[in-house]
């Protein structure tokens, strides 16, 4: 009895002891692994693992430990997992985050815990503006930027009237605000649909409204699975040719394989905007895309590209301080320089630590192997900075 108690006490002491000396770089990565959105998380985790392989598992001579957590597509779970990474695992970097509402719920836990917070996808306006923080960095974009680029494309294409659809959450609102900011024509209708773990996937009523509105084009933002579902229903309703399709974060290498399998050829030739594309001609992107295709047998998505960049950004910070992980100031200064090989090519950080970067027009095409993918056709915005940076006092 006494022995058991002793053993228990020893075990408890072991658990309570600080979980790291500074001999390892610990990176927490919060993403979605369950629910249908788990397919996005898989792409991100695959990219992070590939990046770890490509850097030989080391940064500045230190071993790297990766701790991956599942937010279950829920802000409250994301926050709990962030708390766990900060308090229990005592990581140096909290990264990942697909969803804006999950990032917004989790940011305080990471930043108040004195950790670096790196968003590999979500870019809510709040964090770019009033809630900006010196220890926050983005390897993606601010939500409004991509739809702002799309708004410009719509003007160039002579689209006079638009129907808008997006999910009803933080990023959905940013996307709509973004396209409204640059699109000069008239917005004839707008639907914000239910989102989250139990997201609405049947858009019959909304598509009937869009059709009845008589708009020239339809702008949609449906990331992950919802994108594929939307495109299918768009085609099944016979809307192609009647109301042209313009998307952001909807038609990507996650949606395309299933669309191709379902024979949804209506998506071929449709336009979207993005800061990156699998065929973007930079040395790092070539290494990334060919490595990813070799390892996993499919095209990487932009989620994967940003996750790949996340590891290289962190590596640049750790190397700049020679592996002295207590030197937060040194690591921050290094990251602010964006001095790492990015898949998008060279870029710089704004005062709010969001990238100032190009946005491209991409078209859905069939590649040489008959696989549906996107190809960059034009640069829409050059060195573009988000509009919320002026609200950031930093």
């Amino acid at each position, binding site marked *: 009895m006494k022995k058991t108690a002793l053993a228990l006490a020893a075990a408890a002491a072991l658990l309570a002891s600080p979980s790291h000396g500074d001999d390892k770089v610990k990176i927490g990565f919060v993403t979605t692994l369950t629910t249908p959105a788990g397919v996005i998380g898989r792409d991100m985790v695959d990219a992070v693992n590939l990046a770890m392989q490509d850097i030989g598992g080391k940064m500045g001579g230190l071993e790297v430990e990766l701790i991956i957590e599942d937010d279950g597509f829920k802000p409250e779970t994301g926050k709990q997992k962030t708390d766990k990474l900060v308090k229990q695992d005592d990581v140096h970097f909290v990264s990942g985050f697909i969803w804006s509402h999950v990032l917004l719920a989790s940011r305080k836990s990471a930043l108040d815990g004195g950790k670096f917070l790196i968003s590999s996808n979500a870019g809510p306006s709040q964090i770019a503006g009033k809630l900006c923080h010196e220890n926050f960095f983005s390897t993606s974009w601010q939500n409004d930027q991509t739809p702002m680029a799309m708004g410009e494309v719509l003007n160039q294409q002579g689209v006079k009237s638009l129907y808008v659809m997006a999910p009803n959450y933080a990023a959905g609102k940013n996307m709509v605000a973004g396209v409204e900011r640059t699109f000069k024509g008239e917005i004839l209708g707008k639907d914000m649909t239910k989102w989250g773990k139990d997201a609405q*996937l049947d858009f019959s*009523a909304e598509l009937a409204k869009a059709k*009845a509105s008589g708009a020239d084009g339809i702008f949609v933002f449906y990331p992950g*699975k919802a994108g*594929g579902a939307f495109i299918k229903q768009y*085609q099944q309703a*016979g809307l192609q040719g009647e109301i042209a399709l313009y998307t952001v974060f909807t038609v990507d290498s996650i949606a395309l394989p*299933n669309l191709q*399998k379902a024979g949804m050829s209506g998506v071929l030739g449709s336009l979207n905007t993005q800061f990156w594309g699998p065929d973007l001609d930079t040395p790092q992107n070539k290494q990334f895309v060919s490595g990813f295709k070799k390892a996993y047998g499919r095209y990487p998505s932009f989620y994967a590209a940003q996750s790949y960049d996340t590891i290289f950004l962190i590596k640049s910070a750790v190397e700049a301080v020679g592996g002295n992980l207590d030197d937060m100031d040194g690591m921050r200064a290094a990251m602010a320089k964006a001095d790492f090989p990015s898949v998008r090519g060279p870029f710089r950080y704004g005062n709010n630590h969001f990238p100032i970067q190009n946005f491209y027009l991409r078209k859905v095409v069939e590649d040489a192997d008959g696989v549906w993918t996107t190809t960059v056709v034009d640069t829409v915005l050059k060195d573009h900075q988000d509009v919320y940076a002026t609200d950031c006092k930093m």
Partner: protein
Amino acid sequence: MDAGLVAAQLLNGLQLGVLLFLLASGLTLIFGIMDFVNLAHGSLYMVGAYFCAELTDATGSFLLAVALALPATALVGAAVELLVVRRLYRRDHLDHVLATFGLILCFDALVQILWGPEGMAIRLPAWADGQQHLPGGLVFPTYRLLIIGAGLAVAAGLYVLVVKTKLGMRIRAGASNPAMAGALGIDIGLLFTLVFALGAVMAGLAGMMIAPITEASIGMGNEIIITAFVVVIVGGIGSIRGAFVAALLIGTIDTMGRSFLDMGLKLLMSAQAAETSAPALSAMLIYILMASVLAFRPQGLFPPKSR
């Protein structure tokens, strides 16, 4: 408001209603006859969708896949009843909820292991993938019309089964008073397995019909099952007729709310306020209906007789 749009939305509402009916009819039978709360009914919906997707790949024919997936789903349903559910009838509802919630997790994990997280698309045959021109200049997706047709046919078949056949008589007897039905010599154990498998088939069929629209995906049944429970409660627990009427009612209300609520609200408030409140309010409409039914007619709209 243009009449064509209203007609299109009525059809959309009918299609959603028919789908809800397929789910709710099994749920209401299981709930009504066995007094068993089956949260995992949505998992059978998912299983049906995945079977159909896999078989469509294997056979190259969507219709053949449905024909094969239906008995396969029935077998899964019967297995779940024999292995798990059977042991729970004597326990209280909380245990039912716990156990079937566990089943949901098992099914979701199994599907993830077998088919991966990315979901499965189903390619429709070309004849089902187009649009139909209906009278009045209405253009409507062929496949959604097929769902309506198939759903109504199943509803009619179920009506005949329950009202005109001996098995149906036993099911009705079981729904009214299982103890008395057992005392009269009906093999309640077998009846329960059959009803559970029947419910599974209908849930599976609903999954097969929605999958070409939204893809088969993990956890796809977990949301719609909540709506199906609302249908069961509004219609009256154990009542197929109630489930039918309530499903069509709720399908229509939900679709109409999503279509026209923002327009209506814009008459009362600013456009921006209407845009943000309309989605929230339209998601609440069916629960408002359920709450009113519970307040004024707690037994549901069409409760089975002698309950």
